[in-house]
């Protein structure tokens, strides 16, 4: 379901074949080719290196192509994500999309950069109160600690009723902000969970 192979399309599909690939033989030695072929000046076919001859677009060698949507603005441009050896090797516009027709802006075109950025933080970090440096922390331990803090904060700050005895059923001790680049399904779980634990101060970029 996820990996629908994308047919190659566009101009020049068969052009490469017509241009003729060079086989890897001794005859491919450039000077031999230059002297024996139709490229006596050695500026074209005779100069092709073995590596060049073997050049293939990485969209062609990808293990799968996955349909996605750009994560930046709300135009919702279609993206095709090319995966090789479980790594994203290319993200480009999806020509099928009636919204974007395969085009992307500089941010959308930088999506692969976003995913594979060397600056990206992939480990949990923890800063203790008063601490001056980050420390590392196991991800499950971190989630446990956060759950403990939610439960404790909620208990400490719980409001059953207001001063007139009317039901409040909530906590004002914890808050949230964010969600405009999150999925609908994620926002749904966030709203559902926070509402169930009585946290009302849940906001996102749409307010800002």
């Amino acid at each position, binding site marked *: 379901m996820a990996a629908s192979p994308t047919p190659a399309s566009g101009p020049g599909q068969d052009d490469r074949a017509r241009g003729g690939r060079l086989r890897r033989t001794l005859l491919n030695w450039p000077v031999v080719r230059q002297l024996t072929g139709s490229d006596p000046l050695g500026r074209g076919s005779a100069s092709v290196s073995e590596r060049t001859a073997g050049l293939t677009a990485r969209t062609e060698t990808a293990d799968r192509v996955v349909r996605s949507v750009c994560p930046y603005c709300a135009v919702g441009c279609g993206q095709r994500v090319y995966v090789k050896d479980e790594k994203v090797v290319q993200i480009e516009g999806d020509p099928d999309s009636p919204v974007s027709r395969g085009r992307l802006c500089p941010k959308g075109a930088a999506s692969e950069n976003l995913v594979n950025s060397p600056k990206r933080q992939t480990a*949990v970090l*923890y800063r203790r109160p008063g601490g001056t440096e980050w420390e590392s922390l196991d991800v499950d331990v971190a989630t446990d600690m956060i759950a403990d803090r939610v439960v404790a904060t909620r208990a400490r700050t719980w409001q059953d009723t207001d001063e007139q005895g009317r039901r409040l059923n909530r906590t004002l*001790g914890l808050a949230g902000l964010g969600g405009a680049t999150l999925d609908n*399904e994620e926002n749904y779980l966030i709203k559902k969970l926070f509402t169930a634990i009585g946290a009302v101060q849940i906001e996102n970029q749409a307010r800002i």
Partner: protein
Amino acid sequence: MAECHPVGFQWVMEAKQRGATVIHVDPRYTRTSAVADLHVPLRAGSDIVFLGAIVNHILSTGAWFEEYVKAYTNAAVILREDFQDVDDLDGVFSGYDPETGTYDTSSWNYDGVGAQSSAGAGEEETLENSDRGAGGDSGESEQSEKQRGAGHELGGHGADMGLSGMHRDETLQHPRCVFQVLKRHYARYTPELVEQVCGVPPEQFAKVCEAVTANSGRERTTAWVYSVGWTHHTVGIQYIRGAAIIQLLLGNMGRPGGGIMALRGHASIQGSTDIPTLFNLLPGYLPMPTVDAHGTLPDYLATISSPDQKGFWTAADAYTVSLLKAWWGDAATAENDFCFDHLPRLTGDHGTYRTVMDMLEDTIEGYFVLGQNPAVGSAHGKMQRLALAHLDWLVVRDLNLIETATFWKDSPEIETGELRTEDIGTEVFFLPAATHVEKEGTFTQTHRMLQWRHKAVEPPGDCRSELQFFFELGRKIRERLAGSTLPRDRPVLDLTWDYPLDEHGEVSADAVLREINGYHLTGERAGRPLSSYTEMTADGATSGGCWIYTGVYADGVNQADRRKPGRDQHWVAPEWGWAWPANRRTLYNRASADPQGRPWSERKAYVWWDEEAGRWTGHDVPDFVADKAPSYRPEPGVGGPDGLAGDDPFVMQADGKGWLFAPTGLLDGPMPAHYEPQESPVSNPLYRQQANPTRQVFRREDNLQNPSGDEAGSEVYPYVFTTYRLTEHHTAGGMSRWLPYLAELQPEFFCEVSPELAAERGLEHLGWATITSARTAIEARVLVTDRVVPLRVGGRVIHQVGLPYHWGVGGDALVSGDAANDLFGVTLDANVHIQESKVASCDIRPGRRPTGPALLEHVDAHRRRAGVTILTGNEVRSGDPTSGGGAAAVAEVRAKEHTSDE
């Protein structure tokens, strides 16, 4: 649009090549202006005058689309006798209470509607309607309504719109009919006023009027496109209302090539409003219950709609009960009001800015920040960062180590000495997030279309999706509360939280989307997905997490995953993704046909009545009851969808009509009236009331405001500044300043100034400038450019400074710089609590800003010179210093005394 939505702009370029006229109205000449037919620079914050003068032009030249206006708008409806316009009351509408800064909006309602119904007389026609009582009165005080930010959660906001007794004058001649009231209201909005307030020469303005009116009517349509340049104001809602009035008068709503399009700036910001992580909403624009109005489920439902109003809001009981069933499953029964009491109750404004101020008061212990960078992106960055230092614990989930995560070691306040790392007690968890290709799910784009993304790869290292994190968190919280007998833990333990997991142990987004869509719970279809919200029932027989999304899983198929290539279908492309509601691509498209159901013109045919088939048909899913004939007229007393007449295209409005005048739903006026921004070097020439009299002000020592207009001290901050995005960056930079390919394209924070301002202040191209407001001072490289044009406003030359807001001060990004949003204070729009962050006033000087404590002294020196106090700019009723939430203001001051110890 070319700047911030370049790929969407391809359609504008294509339209232009086919002959469309493209007009760009913006303080700056941008990449959009470069390819537009006309660029109109105007003063930031003056758009109500600009739009209002177009309305006046349309009305005074007879350019309005008469048949459309008479049939589809509320132009003919008679208003109450006690309604008074701003010109009668020195800048406020009737019902204003200067004590609270709020309106009693009852005098804005239709005559004869609501509790105080009065008899019709004379030539007025009485609309035959219900003999049932008027709709439920909300009983909610206007003050608390303002606090909650009422209005926007309900399209029609119809609870007090029981329509019995409404009167119309189809000739539009009655002096109190909407059309005549509108004409009188807008008479002052002349081209001369545009010149005086906006700084737009009449010649330039005339071209806009000419283009807009010449391209509207049966054969042609005009579309309006806006972004946060219209919403980030204390009068933001009224900007949009201004455009809505133009579009209704010209017949451009519900038609192809028409409408008013909000270009939203985040991949699923539409989705995060539909399924809201917003304090005042439940999914599908249902309100969060408040303590004073929503004691019981019937109380709650009575405030959403009245049974005799028209349209689809009358089924709010079915939407609400289905939501409660989705969340609390079998525990939700008719006997316990479907667990309605499991919902927490609001007591006022719990919006993000209010919350940040509560952090400063130490009432908030924990804070989750999810894919958001408030230390840079929110107004008044210093207040945001100082608030973070008051928390007990903070969870930041993001891709990169954004400034919000690292504030404790490298925020500007460390440098000024206001914060000391060792003294900050906040425990910070940074949890790395999954990118869009490392999880599956839907984004809802700006056109309400959901598109499913497949997962390409597993997230690296500790990275997790929000879905997985919150599922796990919920599981762990439930574990900790298991066995509890406390009533407060029932909502947590009753919660449906049993989602299927995949082979990696990850929760299935597909299952969540199915829950959102909803399904039948009983009968032979039990377990089958709902195909439409019209299948929802109020008896607990259906479940559904967001009624407007029902249909996204119709027929058990993920409709958001449809990807029929655009080239293989017609231009509306209905088989790509899925748009709410019911896969309609253009809302209110019944209006694309005339009252008899025929297209207004062949050229603009979109949806029409097929007499033979007895159905509406066309290029889109008709936004109407499919088999309701144009000639249909409801029986008296019928409400809901059945109450819609065959020519009531605005099916979510309580009266089925487009509102030229908003009788209910808004808190700051039934028609747009010009007010100056919270901070403006210009006085309001229309009346003494300077700024929006209902704006939400915060009188605090840490939220001082620049003097405005002819107030003493306004000359210290003589320039207007505005903020914006650049194509090369994204919002507060979390997804762009860490990427080499984007960082190098716009590496440094800069300000854009005209050559004239550069000469006036001695600013040097590529040199540094210091920009100062009553909050702080920031420095930026100077870009002197002809793209910024001075304006002559009220006989004075007004200079504007442009500031892109993508940079922040921190240690981890590839590029950093001062944050433009630090200059703003916090003043909010009353309807939706959105901050005014597209305009304020400032000073600008050549050179770098002082550093360390000297920066604070620099800012303070400006304030002293301007005579700034906490009352400055914060008198909601101009000329009356005692007005406006006095008690609340005192509380703010006290709070500040506490925080100023830091």
